[in-house]
């Protein structure tokens, strides 16, 4: 599989990364070399081997359901660009 320049631009848009044409070209060749690596790995015969969701065959540890956090919003909001009445302010979004 190899990516076209349009694929690269689409991926950049989905990731909210602004790139120009020359950057897209550079990224295209870098990404394609990653795909080459993936192609090499996919050539390995995995018939009969269950897919893994994680590199290690261990399972998630679970937390007891209890409230352990306290309110730190003042500290968090001290580094926020804009805050009002305890709310973080962001440019207007309407859907």
């Amino acid at each position, binding site marked *: 599989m190899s990516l076209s320049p349009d694929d690269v631009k689409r991926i950049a848009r*989905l990731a*909210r990364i602004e790139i120009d044409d020359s950057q897209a070209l550079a990224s295209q060749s870098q990404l394609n070399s990653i795909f080459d690596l993936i192609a090499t790995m996919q050539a390995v015969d995995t018939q009969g081997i269950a897919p893994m*969701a*994680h590199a*290690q065959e*261990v*399972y*998630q*540890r*679970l*937390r*007891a*359901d*209890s*409230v*352990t*956090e306290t*309110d*730190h*919003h003042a500290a*968090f*909001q001290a580094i926020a660009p*804009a805050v*009002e*009445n*305890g*709310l*973080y*302010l*962001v*440019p*207007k*979004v*309407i*859907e």
Partner: protein
Amino acid sequence: MKWETVIGLEVHTQLATQSKIFSGSSTAFGASPNTQASAVDIALPGVLPVLNKGAVECAIKFALAIGATLNRINVFDRKNYFYPDLPKGYQISQLAKPIVEGGALKILVDGEERIINLTRAHLEEDAGKSLHENFQGVTGIDLNRAGTPLLEIVSEPEMRSSAEAVAYARALHTLVTWIGICDGNMQEGSFRVDANVSVRPVGQAEFGTRREIKNLNSFRFLQQAIDYEVRWQIETLEDGGRIEQATVLFDPDTGETRMMRSKEDAHDYRYFPDPDLLPVKLDEDWIESVRAALPELPAAMQLRFQNDFGVSAYDAGLLTGSRALAEYFEAAARACGQGKLVANWVMGELSATLNKAELDIMQSPVSSRQLGALVARIQDGTLSGKLAKQVFEGLWEGAGEVDAIIEARGLKQMSDSGELEKIIDEVLAANQKSVEEIRSGKEKAFNALIGQVMKASKGKANPAQVNDLLKAKLQ
């Protein structure tokens, strides 16, 4: 052309845990903005999610309650999109290996039973809230809700009318509150419904193009939104138009749906397994201990009520509308052994009075024991239905126990036939004209006389006894 409606529902239920799905923040509703949003919830760099056992247990309960498959190994994925109330830039959800698959729910529509199959149910985190109203040109973000555990429950597209969709949503609402995994509060967004709606000519095998109505937070809106959407789709098709796949919003003020985004703007979520979370393994001991702790479920209780108390299937359905109502009914019915009569009182006088006072069954001033005692006094002939209503009013006002109210207010049904005969003789003497009419065959006049006797006894006479005595005297 005849059209068939096809509906599938996706329901987001907020799970009734103390803490969030991946952090130890409180999930309590209504706190000041951002006071329940920890470093994990607001996605500060370097933090890691740790899964809440309570949330997983809710999903296990649900799977057992609907007879679904529990995936012993299930996996969390990242669903990527950008929105300010989603601080990480992705939602942790489950795509390829959800915790619950399959299962079914029984619904009752117009007296007919139907089985609706479920596709899946998966665990995920809720987003924060965006507040647009109070600000000029900016949006306020409250992340208290971010990370609240959700179980998203997806049905097969098996409903064929808005009535069936509402019946399914209600049955699901009853079940999740019954087993205690969700508080069911729709005003607070604990139970949110998305409806996928399409229409097709009757007899056509393929589905039509669907539109998804988002975020319906009442059963009434669900019904209105589907009805409007179905009408709109049929009109569009009959006018020669086409339905484009889209996401729409329902506006309760206009009763209409309007487009939010078309298929072209549809999100490309680029799901992949979340490397921060390992696969979840459910061991059999855990599943069995959850199974053992499950309460009796609504469907089983309905059958038992029909068998033990002789109530109809329809009444059994109503009485199991919530676990609290079912427990109330059963306690009252056991207290007096009169299930059918208790059912009538619970669904009649009690429900009506609770509705009028805007109280739910848990807040009822009349306890199940008191209602049972009241029905026992109807059964043993102490009270007529009419007198019983007066005693009920006394119970509601907190005037004491049933027998004390009967005594204090002199509400005992007249049992002394001598006293009653005296009243009847007086009524007959005063209504000679009616007596003659009856003797000449006018049935109507007889009922009028019964009314007169009841009135003269101040409602305390036993109507059946009056009927018998009056008949004997007029022979």
